[in-house]
Every structure is written in structure tokens, then in C-alpha cells.
């Protein structure tokens, strides 16, 4: 029996495939295997010897079983490794893409701006692009003979209806139908009769903002726009407010931000001034409040407006406005 075990051990250790293991199992432990044969031959033994031999036989079976399993596991492991080895892939080859579309850069910029103002408690108001002259001018403190009308080359549909030249009419529409507190932004298309070139377009995009409530101050205007500038252009951004003129705000201002390309040292982007003009703003003119049915003695407010196209160009360093309207897929897929 000892001989049998040694023989089996020797043979099993030489095995190198799962089939060999299986046939060795049959050879030694199977129904017609060597061990069984030995056990069968036990009939010739004395009865008192049988349990002893039986016990030895069982021990031998167990031992052989163990080496078989052990070796089998070892071989299985080796075979798995071998298989995995030939399954190695070129992991530098490209993946199967799920193509996700690209949002137009202007929409991306607008989304980012919207997010900031939503966080500051603003809602979004919308208004018509074909608008009554009244909302675009008169209600914004810009009567017929106002010199400010000269600055805007307006497309007219009839004498009373035009293509809005600014998103500001939405201010008036909002104030007409909402009681303060008002906190809205209003992005949209606007129109001015400029031939298209690298910096002008007859169709462009603006975003208007309006806050009306009791106790709104010019400090609030500055505070809110400062936060916007920092969130949008980066925490290190500095702002500067310069007096300006708009018929529908007073005092009126333009806001410059420190150049995000050079940090204010002066470069090509900022025309070597270190500053970039970003938006117009001001305290809502009492006449505008009054015309929209809001008591200027009780309420005050501020408004601001910025050009989405221009900010998009600045943000991404796009040098020609026409690229935004050309829609070359290779352009859009950069964003």
C-alpha cells in the first residue's frame, strides 16, 4: 500500500493537465482502480487484520485524494493564467464611444451664468423677440426724440412693433405683472441693424437682470455683480464700476473685470489695460418703476445687462463672432 501511494504521488506530480489528473484519479481511486483492487484482495486477510488494513487504505485514499485536489488546483490555476495571458488586450486601442453631443458654447456660458443667479435667488423670465416699440423704448424712459435712440439701429416691423434691441423690455413686462420682491434674469435674442463682421452681428444674445424690492441699494448692485464676476471669472477677479449712461437706470454704470487672461498686467485680450468691460448696470430709473406700476417712493431696484456672445468670445478666446453662427461641427465639438 505504501508502494502504491508512492507510485501515485510520483505520477500525480508529473501530471500537467486536468485530463491527466482525471485519468490518474480513475487509475488509483476509481471503481476499477488500484486501491479498489487492493481492497478487494482483502478477502484473503484475516478478519482481525481487515479493519487495520481498511484504515490504512482509507488513509492512503485520503492522501491520494488530497494530492490529486492540490495538484488539480495548481494546474487549474496555471491553465487560467495561461488563458488570461493569451487574452491580453491592447488597452491603448480606442473604446467604443457613446457619442454625447456638444452644447453650443453660448448655451454653455449662459447655463453657467444662469446657475450663478439661480443660486442668488433669481428666476428666469422670458419675453417676445418681436416687441412693441413701447416696451423697447418708451417704457424704458426712452421717448421718441431721446438721443439714446440714435445709438441703436433698430429693425422695425411697423411703427409700433420692432425687433427688440435689448432684453430690457422683459424688465418692464415682469414689473407689470409681478409685485416685488422681484429677482429675475432674462436671457434672449436681440437685434440691431449691423452688418455681420468679426465683432458685430444683427442677431445677438443678451442677458438682463432685475431686482426690485424695498431697501435695495447701489451697494447691493455692486455686491451682487461682484459675486457674479468672482463665480464666473474666478475668485481672484477684481471689479471696477465706471459711471455711464442708460436711459432706464440712474445712476448707471459699466462694470470692468480684471483681465482673466493676464490677471490685470495687460495683454492683447484686454487691449493692454488690464481690464475688460463686461456689463452695463444701474439703479432702476424712478420713471421706469412708475410707468410699470411700481411706487418708486417705496421700492428701489437695480438692473444689469450683458452680452452672451461677447462673453463667450472672451471666455474661450474666440476671435471672430461669425464662428458662433457658422456651426462648423469641428468648432462646436471643441466645447
Amino acid at each position, binding site marked *: 500500500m505504501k508502494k502504491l501511494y508512492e507510485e501515485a504521488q510520483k505520477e500525480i506530480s508529473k501530471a500537467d493537465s486536468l485530463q491527466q489528473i482525471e485519468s490518474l484519479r480513475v487509475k488509483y481511486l476509481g471503481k476499477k482502480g488500484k486501491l479498489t483492487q487492493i481492497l478487494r484482495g482483502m478477502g484473503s486477510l484475516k478478519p482481525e487484520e481487515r479493519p487495520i488494513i481498511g484504515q490504512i487504505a482509507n488513509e492512503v485514499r485520503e492522501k491520494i485524494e488530497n494530492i490529486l485536489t492540490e495538484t488539480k488546483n495548481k494546474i487549474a490555476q496555471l491553465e487560467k493564467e495561461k488563458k488570461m495571458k493569451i487574452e491580453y488586450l491592447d488597452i491603448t486601442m480606442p473604446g467604443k464611444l*457613446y*457619442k*454625447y*453631443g456638444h*452644447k*453650443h458654447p453660448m*448655451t454653455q456660458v449662459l447655463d453657467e451664468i444662469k446657475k450663478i443667479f*439661480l443660486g*442668488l*435667488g*433669481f*428666476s*428666469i423670465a422670458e419675453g*417676445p*423677440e*418681436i416687441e*412693441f416699440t413701447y416696451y423697447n423704448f418708451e417704457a424704458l424712459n426712452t421717448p*421718441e426724440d*431721446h*438721443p*439714446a435712440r440714435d*445709438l441703436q439701429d433698430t*429693425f*422695425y*416691423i*411697423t411703427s409700433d*412693433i420692432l*425687433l427688440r434691441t435689448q432684453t430690457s423690455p422683459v424688465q418692464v413686462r415682469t414689473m407689470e405683472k409681478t409685485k416685488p*420682491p422681484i*429677482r429675475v434674469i432674462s436671457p434672449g*435674442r436681440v437685434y440691431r*441693424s449691423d452688418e455681420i463682421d468679426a465683432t458685430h*452681428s*444683427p442677431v445677438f444674445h443678451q442677458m438682463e437682470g432685475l*431686482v426690485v*424690492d424695498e*431697501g*435695495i*441699494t*447701489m*451697494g447691493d448692485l*455692486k*455686491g*451682487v455683480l461682484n459675486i457674479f464676476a468672482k463665480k464666473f471669472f474666478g475668485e481672484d477677479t477684481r471689479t*471696477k464700476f*465706471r*459711471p455711464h*449712461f442708460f436711459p432706464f437706470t*440712474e*445712476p448707471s454704470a459699466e462694470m470692468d473685470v480684471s483681465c482673466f487672461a493676464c490677471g490685470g498686467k495687460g495683454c492683447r485680450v484686454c487691449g493692454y489695460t488690464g481690464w475688460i468691460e463686461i456689463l452695463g448696470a444701474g*439703479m432702476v430709473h*424712478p420713471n421706469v418703476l412708475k410707468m410699470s406700476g411700481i411706487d418708486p417712493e417705496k421700492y*428701489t431696484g437695480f438692473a444689469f445687462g450683458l452680452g452672451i456672445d461677447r462673453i463667450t468670445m472672451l471666455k474661450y478666446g474666440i476671435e471672430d463672432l461669425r464662428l*458662433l*453662427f457658422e*456651426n*462648423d*461641427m469641428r468648432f*462646436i*465639438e471643441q466645447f
Partner: protein
Amino acid sequence: MLVSLSWLKEFVDINKDANTIADGLTMSGSKVEGIKSYGKEISNVVVGKIILLEKHPNANKLWVGIVDIGSEKLQIVTGAQNIKAGDYIPVALHGATLPGGVKIKRGKLRGVESNGMMCSAEELGLDESLLPEYQRNGIFILPPFPLGMDINEALQLKDDVLEFEITPNRPDCLSIIGIARETAATFRKSFKMPVIEVKEGEEENPAKVTIEATDLCFRYVARVVKNVKIGPSPMWMQMRLLKAGIRPINNVVDVTNYVMLELGQPLHAFDLDKVKNKHIIVRRAKEGERLVTLDGKERVLDSSMLVIADEEKAIGLGGVMGGENTEITDSTVNILIESANFKRSNIRHTSKKLGLRSEASSRFEKGLDPEITVLACERAAQLMDKYCGGTVLKGIVDEYPKPMEKTVLTVNPERINRFLGANIPTSEMIEILKSLEFEVVEKGEELEIMVPHFRKDVTMEADIVEEIARLFGYNNIEDSLMKNAQTTLGSLTKSQQLEEKTREVLLACGLNEIVTMSFMGEKDLDKINIPQDSPFRKAVRIINPLGEDQSLMRTTLLPFMLNVAYTNYSRKVEEFKAFEVSRVFLPKELPLTELPQEVKTISIGMYGKDVDFYTIKGVIETLFEVMGIEGVEYVRAQEPSYHPGRSAKILLGEEALGVFGEIHPDVLENYDIPVRVYCGEINLDKIIECANIEKKYTSLPKYPAVERDIAVVVDEDLFVKEVERVIRETGGKFIEKIELFDVYRGPNIPEGKKSVAFSIWYRSRERTLTDEEVNEIHDSIVEALDRRLGAKLR
């Protein structure tokens, strides 16, 4: 507005450099857009006189001149053709420097020694285009200055000129004194008006003025200057005009322009001898009255316009342009100076109607101060007396029917601080206002303010607040975050959320977003085969479009998508998948009496090797799925832009949501696109209206489903949807899902037929269905398909 600092400094006592002044004024509201320096880089350039000029021996186009510069005579070679012996000219000596880093050295030109250079105006940094013809493209010919005099000194060249952007509310700043006042207030320096003393002759002024149209002309001031000698104005004056971008013409015209720049009041000079009876009548034009203006054009006038006339004819368009019939010429001797004030809206109206804008009209239409007229007239008289060799006659005419009233305002400093969110002491407010020439009286808690006559823009408290804020400095007001205001919740409305979601779905389907313009022309509609009587042709028309092809507000986005597809195809972009979300404009009636409907529309377009009808349909179905829109039907579309067999109209009940499909080959030919293109247009407003994204939970099924496949042979033109409908109707509530998995034509299928195969999932929510039950339903489906559609089991 171009402002010379040396001129400015005549009126304000300030000693700072150009950059400091520019920054200060920008921050107080007069924005400086640029600074141009004159004379800074010029050295060793002196006045010389050409005493001899001969042809260059070796070059036809060159001259050799002998130039006297006082201390010596230099031989200089030049290529200029506008000079002759006797001319005074600027001479850059050996070692001279000129603007742009140019250095002059003596040398030889074609073998002839040249000891310097004769300079053009351009080479001295001046704008040559403003100079008379004979000065252009040649040497700058000077008046007789002392020989050898430094050119900077002779021309008073050294200067900094600030370019201001003046906002339309501040016409008073379109003058040197206006900017001087702002400078004085900004830097808290003192401002002084120009000193004006007119030396009058003995002779009485013979001119008379009658204002008939007192509603259009508020004041008319005039003076007569006799025996003038027309000639060039002094060089210093010409230089100031040049630096301000104004063309020097002759002494009389230059004086009127000079005064306009200095004081902001446009003046006009008439040849008095051509004014009938020396009587100026300010009246409305007669209907159809004609006048040839100074630009040589005949204008036909109407009674809405104001003319300056004499007793028999119009001699000028008031505030816009003078008439040719009374123009100052070289032979003019006696002059009438006009300094008047007109109604701004009328000037605007006239200049618009005639398409005639002038320096004067653009100032008058912003609204000028009638109080400056006399001063301006006196200033002009003073200068004409000095530089035009004339005599100012005794007496000034001043017709001023209704003198302007002063504006008095009362403001409350505490209220102003509350409004600004600042804490400016009342004393500082008063100081600011006084520096701007407002008169201020403290009355208890309030300030009574008298507005200076030149500040017509200040009419209410808000205007005062702005004055105080801008001079206090916007950036000195502390930032705050609406601490007094009520809290508001920032959020998107449901339809705004759905619009964003729509974009996200289309992006997730791999479509890129595009943005196109809103204008179209009839040609765009022609290109997509739209018939003449189509509602698409009923478009809002712009009165003053940029061109015929941009004269309509778009009623469809399709032509724009096809344009973009073409752009990309022509640039060899192989795969194109795009969408746009924008508005189309649908008028109820034309011409517009009310605002048109602005319908938010989704436009989709695609081409490429893996793109077919079902690609675009898949995108649309995905969108409906996400939006929770169920029960959409697709029927054959009859749209002329699309392939009739490969396009569908999307119906939800009675409502048409849109159209999509393959673009008609004729249309593709019009766009010169040789591959199949798939497009669609869907009404986003309706999608938003029909969307249902409210989610409800139903428990997951407890009992197993039984899947059975079925393949039937049907007529080729039977819609798969019909087969599905019969299956669903027959199977009733036990049908959980039907999925088409194969459509087959070919061997074993008769001509004109197709085999369609579905998987059907049967399930009950109450119990496990037995085979017998499923078989029974399945058989009844087979039977119904045969009976209702003639579909044979395959």
C-alpha cells in the same frame, strides 16, 4: 470728442499728466478711450525756407533744394512734388528724430549729398487727410515762421489729445469747457471761463432778426463783422482744429469751428451782402421749398422743417446746414455770425428726413444750452476781429422770446445715502455739487439745489444722486448683498426645466447644438420647395432689413439646418448630427396688428454613413419617451421639403407635433448636397405642454411572463403598426409588451409581401398564466391577424 490737453488747461488749473487726467475722468463718468501724443518724439526739426530748387541730375523724380535754416544753408534732396522756392517747410536736421522712432541722418541720394529731410505733415504725426489738397502727399508748407525755429515751438505741436466717449445725456461735454468743468470737479480744481472782450467799431449793426417759428427756435443771437479778409487762420488755431479732427478751411470758418469746439455752440457765418435787406427771418419752410445746401445738393423741404431765410428766400437749414447762396467765399467782405438755439427733436427730425447730418445737427439734436449763445457769438466776434482783419459792428442782436427757467430741486441727503447704501456726509455732498457749479442751500434736513443752465440733463432727484455718486466714486460705495430685501427662491419653471431636458436628451443622442440667425428671405423658402400659397410664406416682414434675403422673420428652421449641413458637408465633415432650439414667428394676420406667435421649435438634422430614417426617428422617439409622451402616431407626411415615401408627420391625437424624414432629392439638389440628409422640425411648446414627467410607482410583477414569437406574411405596404394594433387589441390585458424583431423579404416570401416577426410577452398581474391560457390567446391573435389583415402565419 477729441480734447487737447493744452487747450483744456486754459480753463482749468491742473498740472497732472495725461494718464492721470484720463483715469480720473473715466472714473467720474467721462470715459477716455485713447490718448494720442503729439510732438513728443520730435527733436531737431526746424523751420527752413527753400531758396533754390533744382532737378536732381541723376533722377527724374527727385529735387535738390537749398534750404535756409537761419544759421546755415543746407542741401537737401527730396522726392516731393508740391514745393517751390520760397516755401517755408519743416526740416529734419542730421540727428533729428520723428514719430515712430525714425532717425534722420545725412547721406547721399543718387550721388547727391542730402543734409537732412524736408517733412510732410504725416511725418510730424498729423492727420494729412484733414489738410487741403496741396498739403497732401508732399511737404507740409508752413506760414513764414522765423528760420531755424524749433518746429514744436512754431506749431505748438507738443500736446496730448484725449479721446472721450461722451454719452448722449451730456451734450455739454462735447466742448473743451465742458470737459474742463468735469476735470475741475473731478480733481477739485478751479475752473475759469474764457475771457471775452469784443472791440466794437463805431458803425451800428445793420442786421435785423425776426423769429417767426418760436416753437422751433428758442434764441437767435447775431453780430456783424465788416471788411474781413478771407485767408488762412493762424497756425496755432489750425493745429488745434487738426488735433480735434476738424479740417482747417479759412479764417472765418475756422473761427466758427474753433468756438464750437471750445464752447460747444455751433455757429454759422453768412455772407451778409447776399442776405436780402440784411433781415434774417427764422420760419418754417414752405411745402416744396427748395434750398441748395453747402454740400452742393438741392433739398426739397416741407413745413415741418425750419429754415433761416431772408426776405425773399431760404438761406440755411436751421441748425443743420447753411445754404450755398450765402456761403462764405474768397470774395466775402461782410459777415453775419449766427449763434442760435433750436428745438432738438425738430433738428433730429429734419436731419433724418433729409438724410443730412452735420457736426452742428448732431450737437443740436442732443439739446444745447441757450444761455451759451451770446458768449459764443462774442467769442467768435473777438477772434474774427483779431484774425480775420474785420471790424465788429456796434451792437449785438439777441432774440430770446422766452428765457429759460432755472431748475430748482430739493433733495434729502439721508435718503440719498439710504439709496446708495453709503454714508456720505452732507458737507461732502454739498462740496461735490458746488464743484459741478450747482448752487446749494441747506434747508433743515434738505438741500435746495439750483441746477446750472448748461446741465439740461438734471431734472430730478435721481439725477442729483447720480452726480453725487459718480464724484464720490462708485468704487467707494461699499458692496452689500441685499440684506434689507426679502429672500426669494431661485428656480426654473416647469417648462424651463422641460426645455433644458429636451436639450439634454438631444445631446445624449449624440447631436451637437447649433445656433443660426433669425432672418430669412423668400429664396430660402424657394430652396426648400415651399409653394407660393403655403402658410410658411406668411412671414413677418422687416421694414428696413439689411437685404432682401434677410427681410423676413423665419417661419421654419429647416433652411438654416440645411445651410449648416451644407457648410459641414462642403468642409468634408463626414458625420453630421445637429439640433437647434429656437423660435419661429407665426403672425395671425399681416400686416401685424398684434404680436405674432413665437413658437419654440426643435430642428434636427443629420447625415452620415450610419444615418437613415430610423436614426432620426429613434432620436424623436427617445425624446418622447423621456418626456413621458405616449400614444404618438406617425402618418405619411405630405410636406414638399421631404421625400414623400420617407417622411412622417407626428400626431398626438388631433395635434400635429412635427414632421421629420429624408429631405426631398430636389431640395438636396438646391443645396448642392449629394448625400441623403434627414431633418425634422418639432414644436417644442407643444412637447412641453404634453410632457408628463410625473413618475408613479407600480409594484414589480410577481408572476412570470411567457414569451411567444409570431411571424406572419403580410402585404408589402401594410404598416407594421397595423399588425401591432391587431395583436394588442386581440390580446387585451394579458399583453405586456410587443417587440418587432424581424422584417424579411426574399426567398420563400411571395413578391409584394413581407414577413414580420414579433415577440409577444404575456403576463398576468394576479397569477401565473398556464400554457393553455397563453396558447388560447396566441391562437386567437393568429386568427385575428388572418381575418383582419389577411396575414398568414409563416
